[in-house]
Each structure stands twice: as structure tokens, then as C-alpha cells.
């Protein structure tokens, strides 16, 4: 088993304002992340994900317990020494002026350079390596404000990489990206963790991607409870239901995703299978139907005719006259309409 890179010992997080009582967000957290692993921090909004991340990177003091980075308590590290072991990619969109992507990544060498900030040959080599590692070589000359969100995020990861950290912490690195960019970013982060044998920790709202990509999942629940383990452990153990309970959404363990539809009102039987059958069922579920097997009694009966090139749907309700539709849009509209 690879070395433990990040470990917390009975960590308490929260705020202790100068006046008033201190507010504990979560207590007694014991977590571990190994070298080469990608950890994902998940949880509903306002549950304290940011507080936990800020505490883990030393931007705010722990209320109790310790954060160990490669065995060293981060509270005892000087800022510069901490910056050499730990780098961060924040959610906030940075706005800089006349700065090339290369110069931006070079800023990551800050904790390694002397007081003048002069880059040595080795510093520049690492900057180039970081840009290559995230596949941003062709962006090096570009001005940062010209980059797209996805390109900019890759460059920010390169900057964090140029700090040569043992642990990289990313706060919602996929927040502003579209789906292909998100998948690309997660793939990149996994590859970086494996190839450089560093530990990566990221917070995200992207449950699907986290379930598929994370080596370790930390699920922070309201009230300060925390479930950790492999994504599959947490699904099987029912941690998702516990964490996101009560918000009017259910977690489908089989599919590993949340159900977005309200509870179904009507039973619908579908005759037909294959790809057409799957997507017809999806459309009917969205229209408020509870799907049952073809032979079971149901208020609504839908029969698929034709093939994928020219599909037809025949709808009957309570044994009444049947209607024909030629698209799922029309079918859903018919099912939702008052006629039924």
C-alpha cells in the first residue's frame, strides 16, 4: 500500500469569532488520502465543504485535532514550507492583466525561488514540465484573459503542479466547465495523481463524475457527519441516502444517481424493448408515469411499433380507443394532457 499523504486526526473544523461562541461545523474527522489517489469531497451546499478544505490547506486554523501532511503537522510548518508541500486551485476566477499562461504557471515557483523571485534553469524546466503534463504546451504564449474556461483551468492546474506539491487541493475544479471539459479535467487529474504519485483532493458537486473517478470519496453530511471510503463502499452502505436525505430526491443505488422525478402518479405498461424501449420508459417517467411490466395491470398501455428509423407508439387508456403518435415528444404531451 502506498504512503499516506494526507491524514487528519480527530479534526474539528469551524469558526471561532473574536466575540461570541465558536461554531463547530464538523468534529472528530479522521481521514486519509494515499499517494497516487484522487479523493473527492462531496456534500450538500452549506454543509462545510469549503471550511474543511480551507482547514486542510491551512488557510484557517483547526478548532481541534491535527492535519498531517506526509506525517508533518501543517500547523507547525512555516508558510513557505507548507507551500512547497501543498498547492491549491481555487474556485474563484482569477483576473489578471498582461500575463501569459507561461508567466502564470511560473508564479507557482514562488515558494522555491529566492527573495528576488528569479527563476533558475531548473525552475523553468519545471514550469515547462507542468505545462506539458496538463497538455497546455500550445497555450504557453497566450494571454491568460484570452483563454477559454477549460484552457484556463488546465493552466491553473499546471500552476499548482509547478509548485511541486505532495498534495494538490482543488476547490470545484469542474464548476465552470461543460460536460466534455469536465470529463477531460477529471481524466487529467487522475492521470496526474497516478503518474506523479501525488495525492489530489477535490471538492465537487458532480456526483456522477466523482462516483466514476474518485479513489476515495468523502461525503460530508449535514450536522457534521462524514462518510469515507471507496465510492462503491458508500453506495452499498447507503451513505448517499443518509447524506442527501429529505430534500425530495431519492438515490437510485442501482444506477448510482439521484432520481430527478417526483413520485409517479400513474402506472404505465410498456410493450417493446431494446433502445426504443429504454428511452420510451425515460420519457414516460419524466411525464409522471410509474413503469410496470407489460403483463401487469395499468391505467396506461403503450405499444411500440415500427423500428428505430420510423418508430410509432400506440397509446390506450383503460381499454378506451387507441391513439397513434410519431415522436416521444408527442407521446409525453399526450400522457400529460387532460385526455387521460
Amino acid at each position, binding site marked *: 500500500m502506498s504512503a499516506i499523504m494526507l491524514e487528519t486526526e480527530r479534526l474539528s473544523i469551524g469558526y471561532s469569532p473574536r466575540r461570541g461562541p465558536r461554531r463547530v461545523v464538523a468534529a472528530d474527522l479522521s481521514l486519509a488520502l494515499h499517494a497516487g489517489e484522487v479523493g473527492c469531497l462531496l456534500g450538500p451546499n452549506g454543509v462545510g465543504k469549503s471550511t474543511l478544505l480551507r482547514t486542510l*490547506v491551512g*488557510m484557517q486554523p483547526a478548532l481541534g485535532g491535527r492535519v498531517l501532511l506526509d506525517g508533518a503537522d501543517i500547523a507547525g510548518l*512555516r*508558510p*513557505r*514550507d*507548507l*507551500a*512547497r508541500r*501543498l*498547492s*491549491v486551485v*481555487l474556485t*474563484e476566477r*482569477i*483576473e*489578471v*492583466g*498582461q*500575463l*501569459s499562461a*507561461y*508567466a*502564470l504557471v*511560473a*508564479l*507557482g515557483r*514562488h*515558494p522555491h*525561488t529566492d*527573495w*528576488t*523571485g528569479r*527563476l533558475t534553469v531548473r525552475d*523553468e524546466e519545471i514550469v*515547462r514540465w507542468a505545462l506539458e503534463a496538463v497538455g497546455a*504546451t*500550445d497555450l*504557453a*504564449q*497566450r*494571454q491568460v*484573459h*484570452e483563454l477559454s474556461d477549460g484552457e484556463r483551468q488546465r493552466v491553473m492546474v499546471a500552476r499548482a503542479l509547478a*509548485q511541486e506539491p505532495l498534495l494538490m487541493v482543488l476547490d470545484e475544479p469542474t464548476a465552470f466547465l461543460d460536460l466534455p471539459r469536465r470529463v477531460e479535467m477529471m481524466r487529467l487529474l487522475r492521470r496526474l495523481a497516478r503518474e506523479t504519485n501525488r495525492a489530489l483532493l477535490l471538492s465537487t458537486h458532480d456526483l456522477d463524475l466523482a462516483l466514476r473517478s474518485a479513489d476515495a470519496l468523502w461525503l460530508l453530511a449535514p450536522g457534521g457527519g462524514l462518510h469515507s471510503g471507496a465510492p462503491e463502499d458508500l453506495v452499498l452502505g447507503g451513505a448517499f441516502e443518509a447524506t442527501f436525505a429529505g430534500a425530495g430526491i431519492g438515490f437510485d443505488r442501482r444506477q448510482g444517481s439521484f432520481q430527478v422525478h417526483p413520485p409517479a402518479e400513474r402506472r404505465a405498461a410498456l410493450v417493446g424493448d431494446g433502445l426504443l424501449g429504454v428511452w420510451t420508459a425515460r420519457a414516460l417517467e419524466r411525464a409522471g408515469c410509474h413503469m410496470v411490466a407489460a403483463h401487469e395491470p395499468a391505467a396506461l398501455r403503450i405499444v411500440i411499433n415500427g423500428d428505430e428509423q420510423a418508430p410509432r407508439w400506440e397509446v390506450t387508456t383503460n381499454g378506451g380507443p387507441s391513439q397513434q403518435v410519431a415522436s416521444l415528444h408527442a407521446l409525453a404531451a399526450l400522457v400529460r394532457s387532460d385526455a387521460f
Partner: protein
Amino acid sequence: MANAVPISTESPWPRLGLHPLALLALLLALLGTFLLSLSLGSVRIPLDQVLTIVVGGQPARATWATIIYDFRLPKALTAALAGAALAVSGLQMQMLFRNPLADPYVLGVSSGASLGVALVVLTVGAANTTLLAVVGLLGNLSLVAAACIGAGAVLGLVLALAQRVQSSITLLILGLMVGYLTTAIVSLLLYFSIAERIHAYIAWSFGSFGGVTWSQLRVLAPVVVIGLLLAFTLTKALNALLLGEAYAQTMGLNIRRARIGIVAGSAILAGAVTAFCGPVGFLGIAVPHLARALLRSADHRVLAPACTLLGATTALLADLAAQAPGSDTVLPLNAITALIGAPVVVWVILRRGVARGAFGV
């Protein structure tokens, strides 16, 4: 970008140069302007004669040496020092507050100096003291001392606040409020003062490089040099702040210490200049923008020396214009800096499209 495919012979890596050629050009421009400002004035002295005098030779007319040594050289040196100080101070403030509108005076230092001067000019002596007596009492030095005390008091206050407050924006607002407070007190003093004294105060507030003597330069020059050196040692911190305070912190920068160093150095620069030259406006806000646009760089290791050279040059040019060469008239310096400078800055910023790029405000 059009050239998406890099040419194989060309390195894909840009050079993070310190723009030595550009800095050399700025230095030459400064030297040229400096000589020009010694040459031009109510009496025009040929450039070759200026050079002769500066290297210690005998000029064609003896009075020329007197004019240069007693008047133009101290004034040109003052202008160069003040311009450099204000430009570097402005650069620091714009970066610290991540605000392209910040200038050396956002911390209220010049307001403090104004208050000190106003207190001396408007209230010293009995109400029936004649203006002559006031001027005699003031001399140059008491004005300078008053401005120093005022600027120093505000500096101390701002530094004390800088140690306490969490964010630089809070500090910015506090500095602005201190400025408003002192301005209000000055207004009250002006309201209850007599016309002659008000005039003396307003003359000071126009700003001038002309009133500084050699003996005062012995104070101003070392203070400005120290402030500039302090600023140069903090360029790495300023670069770290490019990405914002949160990132700077994660890169190992001690924000609080850096902030105090920047605020102290900047306030010393601005305070010293205001004390000796009055509240000279515009240079501090404009020169950093000009430097960024000219060098197309955000690296403070380049921008700090560039602002030093460009600030000195700009101040000399403004002073030249205020002299209205060939005439005996001297125009208010502050009016000239803004009148000539503001359109230039607007033009540069629009042309380069750096308005958005400066900080992305």
C-alpha cells in the same frame, strides 16, 4: 489565436525576460528629459553649455552656472525623485488593492499632509497677523515639517489598522475615510480663515517642484531612495499578489507582513513627496498604467524599475510644460499633469485594450 500550430523550429516557450532594452530606452529618455529641463526655462541655455556646467566646466556666461546650480538642478532632481516615488507608490497601491484607480493617496497620506499644512497656514498666529508675518513664520521648512507630521500621523494610523484588518479592501475604505475626515477639517479651517491665508494654502495645494532647496533635497533624496529600495525588495510579493490574496497565501506569502511592508514603503514615498512638493496628483495613477501598456508585462520585477524611470521622466516633462518655456509664467503643476496626462493615458489604454486587461475590473 491564428497560429494554433507552432512552427517546429521555434521554441514554444516564451522568454520571461526583464526587458533590458526597454529599460535602457527608458533610462536614456530620462537622461534626455533631465538635460532638457536644465536647458529650458525663462532663460534658454544651450544644451552643450548645460553639459559643460554639469561636468564642472566654465560656461560662456557665468550667470548660467548660477541658474543651473541654484535653481534648475535642485528642481529637476526634485521632479525626478518625486515622479519616481509617486509612480512606484501608485504601482504598489494598485496591486495591493487590485484596483486600477488606486493611487499613492488612497491611504490618506496626502490628506494628512494637507491637514498639517492647513493647520500651520490657516491658524498660526493671531487673527490680525499680516500675511508677510505668516510667510516669514512659515519659511519653507515649517511647511515641510507640518506636512511631514500630518503625513506621518496618518501613516501611523494606517499602519496600525493594516496590522488589524483582515482584508486589503477594508484598509482601502479606512484610508479613504481618513482622507475624507482630514479634508473636512481642512474645509472647516478654510471656511473660518482669511483670504490671504487661504490663498497661501491653495498655492501649496497646486503642487510645485520649485520650492525645494539643496538642504531639503538632502532629506528628500535619501527618504525616496529608501522607499524605492523597499519597494524593489517587495516585487516578488507583488507578483504573488497578481492572483489575489488567497492564492498568494497558498504560495507561502505572509500576507500581513507583505501588506505592512508595501503600505509603509508606499506611504513613506507619497508622504515625503507631498511634504516637499505639495499634493502632486495624477502621476501616481497614470504612470503604472503607461508602464504596463508600454512593456506589456505584469511582472513587477520589470514594472518597478520601469515606473521609477517613467515616473521621473513624466514628472520632468510636466514640470517643463508648467514652466511654459520662454515665458516667465509658471502654471499650477497639478493642472498641467492632469491636463496633458489624462488624454495620453486614455489614448494608451484604449489603443492597447488594457482597460480590461489591467486587472479585469
